[in-house]
């Protein structure tokens, strides 16, 4: 057991995407909002009003479109440029309150507040909360517990029970009161317990968080895995999952998107694959890795069952690990040509960079041309710098195409209010 009870906090933005849209459009205050996925396919975010209407996360848009019209729900395409900037602002503001921060996703982060225990942590949480709300207009809830798993549960309570007023510190709750709370939450709310695991736990008679907390970690380890054992220990106040303040580099990078309209030709598919690989290569260089293999895939639309279906993919190894966009494009396109068959209505394409390793650690080949390698590095650096300084896509490979007729639909996207000078909000002086 740990000697000191830790204080781990989880700060989570409420209905993040919908709340971001509200900051720049005061007309949306108190109104129901839906955000659609890339290509306007599915519902990926909802305001509280929409959640209360029972519209579920992930449902295809066409299934709820009439319901949305009936309830006058404002619907938007996802504006990731805006959400990313707002996320960066929120994370920066939070980091001023605590140096030990793990950015866990676009709208949530863990903090280690163990060293702040001389302060009343509930009050400190309220300060973080009101500062974020004042500075960027976004509502957040904060959960505090002795482990990450408990912090997640505390956050759930802070959101669902108005009693906590947005900040819930489980370390201040007495043991029997805590067990009372846990007996009212279903086990599926526990961090890391997915739908299938939940089903299996219920079959074992574990229905609530309290049941899981009281279960034997060893027995569960045999039934499930070491992950479940850790979860049980975390529920009992033992911090087993450390904060990852520096995100480890990804082992794979994927970039795939659905098309706005079905695509038939190899040339249009090539444009899409070139665009996706260019994006993936940028991410690859950003995390200072090189890829050894490229996987390329194309899909027809599985929802259109009457149309002929064809969904191939191909893994192509690179002659040597690289982060050079030109090399990656050539390899991906070779893969694409080998799987493409005419006569199908393709709906989606994607690429995956696989077998990644840190750049600069590769064994040099006997016949490598050092000059060429250096040249490649300089060229990629130059492209990245220009695109960083002057906007993404300022300089690009012509293979991406100019028209991009396959590009995903985003018909209801709001403007990039904080990143483009010609799209900033209007203040009326009338």
């Amino acid at each position: 057991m740990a000697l000191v009870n830790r204080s781990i906090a989880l700060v989570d933005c409420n209905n993040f995407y919908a709340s971001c849209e509200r900051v720049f459009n005061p007309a949306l205050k108190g109104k129901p909002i839906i955000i659609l996925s890339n290509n306007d396919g599915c519902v990926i975010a909802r305001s509280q009003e929409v959640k209360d209407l029972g519209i579920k996360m992930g449902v295809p848009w066409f299934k709820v479109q009439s319901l949305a019209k009936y309830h006058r729900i404002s619907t938007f395409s996802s504006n990731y440029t805006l959400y990313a900037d707002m996320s960066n602002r929120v994370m920066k503001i939070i980091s001023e309150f605590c140096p030990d921060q793990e950015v866990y996703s676009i709208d949530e982060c863990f903090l280690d507040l163990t060293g702040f225990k001389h302060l009343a942590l509930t009050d400190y949480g309220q300060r973080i909360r009101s500062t974020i709300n004042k500075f960027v207009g976004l509502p957040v809830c904060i959960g505090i517990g002795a482990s990450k798993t408990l912090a997640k549960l505390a956050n759930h309570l802070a959101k669902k029970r108005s009693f906590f007023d947005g900040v819930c510190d489980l370390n201040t709750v007495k043991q029997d009161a805590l067990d009372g709370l846990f007996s009212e939450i279903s086990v599926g709310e526990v961090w890391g317990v997915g739908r299938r695991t939940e089903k299996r736990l219920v079959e074992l008679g574990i229905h609530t968080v309290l049941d899981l907390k009281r279960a034997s970690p060893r027995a569960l380890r045999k039934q499930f895995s070491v992950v479940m054992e850790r979860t049980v220990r975390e529920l009992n106040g033992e911090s087993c999952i450390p904060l990852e303040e520096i995100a480890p580099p990804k082992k794979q990078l994927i970039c795939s998107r659905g098309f706005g309209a079905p695509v038939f030709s190899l040339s249009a598919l090539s444009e899409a694959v070139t665009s996706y690989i260019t994006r993936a290569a940028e991410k690859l260089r950003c995390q200072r890795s090189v890829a050894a293999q490229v996987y390329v895939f194309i899909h027809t639309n599985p929802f259109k069952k009457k149309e002929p279906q064809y969904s191939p993919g191909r893994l192509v190894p690179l002659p040597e690990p690289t982060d050079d966009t030109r090399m990656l494009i050539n390899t991906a396109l070779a893969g694409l040509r080998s799987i493409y068959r005419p006569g199908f209505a393709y709906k989606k394409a994607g690429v995956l960079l696989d077998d990644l390793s840190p750049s600069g650690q590769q064994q040099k080949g006997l016949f490598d041309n050092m000059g060429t390698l250096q040249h490649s590095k300089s060229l990629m650096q130059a492209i990245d710098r220009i695109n960083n300084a002057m906007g993404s896509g300022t300089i690009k490979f012509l293979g991406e195409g100019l028209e991009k007729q396959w590009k995903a639909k985003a018909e209801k996207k709001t403007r990039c209010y904080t990143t483009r000078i010609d799209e900033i909000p209007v203040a009326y002086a009338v």
Partner: protein
Amino acid sequence: MKTSDLKNDRKESVLSLIGLKPEPSSGEWPVFTSAITAGFPSPADDYIENRIDLNEHLVQHKEATFFLRVQGDSMTGLGILNNDLLVVDRSLPIEDGNIVIAAIDGEFTVKQLVHSQKGYMLKAANPAYQDIIVGPEDDLEVWGVVRWAIHKLWP
């Protein structure tokens, strides 16, 4: 200076902007790899300061600062003209007399916030426009405080 020099100059500055120095082609490598200082060292070396950066002056709280564009001429009396760029700082405390962005009827409006005996008022700075009295039932949301208005004088 010859035109060709000018062109070369420009090319070099563009290359240095993106962090690349032109590489000498093979066969032109210098014999010595370390640089040889020649000429008189600059007497200004010890006096170099960072050049003024407007971002630092105009933006005090980066995370809480947003830019908005003015549309309309109700604030001309306070020097805020149509099409001006506003630097809005949401972190500032809202005080009597501040120029603020307020959310009214689902839109952002720029006005001066004035506290009087009748309550709060959003004051226009142009006699052609009426002030907005904020009643106790009205839901006034002050979105942020305007710190700067930037006005373009030359296209």
